[in-house]
């Protein structure tokens, strides 16, 4: 009986494909903005060919069978690319659901014996449901890759080393400091210190939501490395609640110059470099050459 259905599917392959395409191209389901109907057709032909040519009597009863590997692979790559193209999970799932509907309809027309019909449609259901699960699994994997790529991008854009003055670098740290990010930040900072022959580096942690012992340890490491290059490191942007937390936690930052704001850190840096910044008043304006 199972052989019959495989033979039936083979004979009706062309009709199934046409009906399936029709089903997919209904105005409610079609997404011409995301995929052209030619590409959609190519995907459909590939999947239906893989399905018909790999389906064996044994594998129809056992959805874990190795016969399914080519189908699984193909379906996986289709759903994966759908995820990246921006299809919704529902739209991706409907691709398989549409095929299931058509297959059931074809069987209904061909098989007359009710018992046999029920038996066959159950098998088709089980098979297609399994494919549907595969679709979702790979769809989610595809989305996760998108998220991972974005995470990398965020990590990269959030570490600018700014030359605020001749000899003074500022580095606003945003987000959590983990080992990998500390490495990136340290490299960027140390390279810039050497290149610009700066004497002072200001690490601003206003954008770090939580300073726990791991973040503190990474900060201490960065400060030590800066010192080895002969530069002074100032940590700024310590909020009041963070200051209290650091004390309770028992982290000793007394060996580091810390300031509450970037402005006071900059002022401290000016002092170290013996620079003076003052407001022009009528009394001292005469000392300044008119432009």
């Amino acid at each position, binding site marked *: 009986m199972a052989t019959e259905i495989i033979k039936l599917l083979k004979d009706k392959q062309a009709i199934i494909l046409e009906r399936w395409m029709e089903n997919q191209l209904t105005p409610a389901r079609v997404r011409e903005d995301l995929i052209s109907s030619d590409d959609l057709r190519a995907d459909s032909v590939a999947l239906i060919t893989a399905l018909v040519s790999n389906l064996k009597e044994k594998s129809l009863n056992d959805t874990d069978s190795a016969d399914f590997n080519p189908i699984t692979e193909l379906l996986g790559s289709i759903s994966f690319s759908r995820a990246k193209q921006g299809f919704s999970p529902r739209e991706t799932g409907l691709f398989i659901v549409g095929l299931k509907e058509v297959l059931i309809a074809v069987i209904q027309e061909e098989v007359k014996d009710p018992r046999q019909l029920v038996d066959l449609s159950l098998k088709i259901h089980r098979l297609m449901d399994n494919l549907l699960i595969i679709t979702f699994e790979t769809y989610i994997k595809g989305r996760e890759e998108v998220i991972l790529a974005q*995470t990398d991008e965020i990590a990269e854009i959030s570490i600018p080393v700014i030359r605020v003055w001749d000899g003074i670098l500022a580095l606003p740290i945003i987000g*959590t400091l*983990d080992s990998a990010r500390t490495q990136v930040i340290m490299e960027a900072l140390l390279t810039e210190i050497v290149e610009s022959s700066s004497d002072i580096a200001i690490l601003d942690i206003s954008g770090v*939501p*939580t*300073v*726990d*012992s*791991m973040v*503190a*340890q990474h900060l201490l490491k960065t400060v030590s490395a800066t010192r080895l290059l002969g530069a002074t490191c100032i940590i700024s942007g310590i909020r*009041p*609640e*963070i200051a*209290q*937390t650091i004390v*309770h*936690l*028992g*982290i000793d930052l007394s060996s580091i110059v810390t300031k509450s704001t970037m402005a006071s850190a900059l002022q401290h840096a000016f002092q170290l470099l013996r620079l003076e910044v003052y407001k022009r008043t009528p009394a001292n304006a005469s000392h300044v050459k008119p432009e």
Partner: protein
Amino acid sequence: MIKTAILLATEHMSILREEDVVPFRYRVKECAAGIKMGLVNQTYLITAASELARNMLKYADGGIVLIETIERDGETGIRLMFKDQGPGIEDVGLALKDGFSTGGSLGVGLPGAKRLVNEFEIASEPGKGTSVTIIRWANG
């Protein structure tokens, strides 16, 4: 032994990767803000939570945390229970001493977390895992 309290809300989160720590901290912050905990107390709680979550990742390959909103004697607070199936702690007393670390860190995580919360309880058995319970009251 931590006294019993009325449970107002409960949820759990698993900490299995480094990336789970930030969403977990965020969730604790939301719960703490939900019971109108002050900013300083919130920061204490979140930092303690962060230390304990990282310990769990570092020494036990992760575990599970129960986040609970509780009430006792008219006070509301957040109770966090960290449970792992890791190697356990040989000498809990030593692990709670400042500056002691088997993992090359500052050694302030566990004792620091204890100082940052109102109530702290740790139970550990070598080979069986560790569980840490902390409570921070909204106005404690």
